[in-house]
């Protein structure tokens, strides 16, 4: 039997960030719509990169399959 899940799934497409009036606007993925100061955006970016590196290591170490 095939099971279908309608719950939100991890995004495989990146959000799009742009600069607007001295602020950073992030659109997507999905319902994400947030405005940040440049400093907050830079720190968020750094945090995202760190988390992404850790997630990649988890995949390599444990064989998680991100075949979404």
């Amino acid at each position, binding site marked *: 039997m095939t099971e279908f899940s309608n719950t939100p799934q991890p995004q495989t497409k990146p959000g799009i960030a742009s600069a*607007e009036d001295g*602020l950073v*606007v992030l659109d*997507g993925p*999905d319902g994400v*719509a947030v405005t940040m100061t440049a400093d907050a955006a830079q720190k968020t970016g750094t945090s995202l990169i760190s988390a992404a590196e850790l997630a990649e290591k988890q995949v390599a170490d444990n064989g998680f399959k991100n075949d979404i």
Partner: protein
Amino acid sequence: MFTERFLRHRRGVHLESEERARLEASISEIKTLPPRTNIVMAGDELSQSILLLEGFMSRYIDDRNGLRQLVAVHVPGDFVDLHAFPLKVLDHDVATMTAATVAIVPHSELEAITHDLPALTRKLWFSTLIDAAIHRAWLFRFGRLDAVGRVAHFISETNVRLMSAGLSDGRRFALGLIQSDLAEICGLTNVHINRVLRQLREERLCVFRSSLVEILEPAKLAARGQFDPAYLYIDLQSAESPSSRPRLNS
């Protein structure tokens, strides 16, 4: 006639002349209110409800930092806080957004209607169910749509609601809201709203000029906001001009 817009063009619901007369007779007072006026505060004990005749009103909740989230916008013809009749105390505030004219209906009159006119009572109930349907659509909007989609959905929804009230021709309507109102409605910053409105204009979907909204492509705007008007229970055939009906699949 004060109740002319109440449940106007709603699918499967029609106020009989006796019912309309009773509703008219239940109005105790007509009030004209300035913009940005609080009418009901959360926690207040209420003994009357408000039928909006002219203008726009909102229901809102402020967070602990005082930042506001609008949870409903009301257009002429809406019974703004009819749910206060059974609830007596609301969990949100109610305010005018623009100058507004309202009809006050005492709860004692509504109580009498529930005893005397069960069919009208069901129609009043129906109107609160429409409010609930709109709330569900707003939840969907916040949960699933991006910034452009949220604004497109709200504009499409407002257009259809105003068509029902006879205040939009399907493409143009007066919306006496400012950019920060749209921000609070869509959960976006002013900067974000500004960018979204520019994008909608550049994509030739919708243009804001002062307080006037012109929808250049109703069907495309509806599609951009995943807006399906079914939840408004409006008979679009009678409410609209033929060329302006939003269609998701076009």
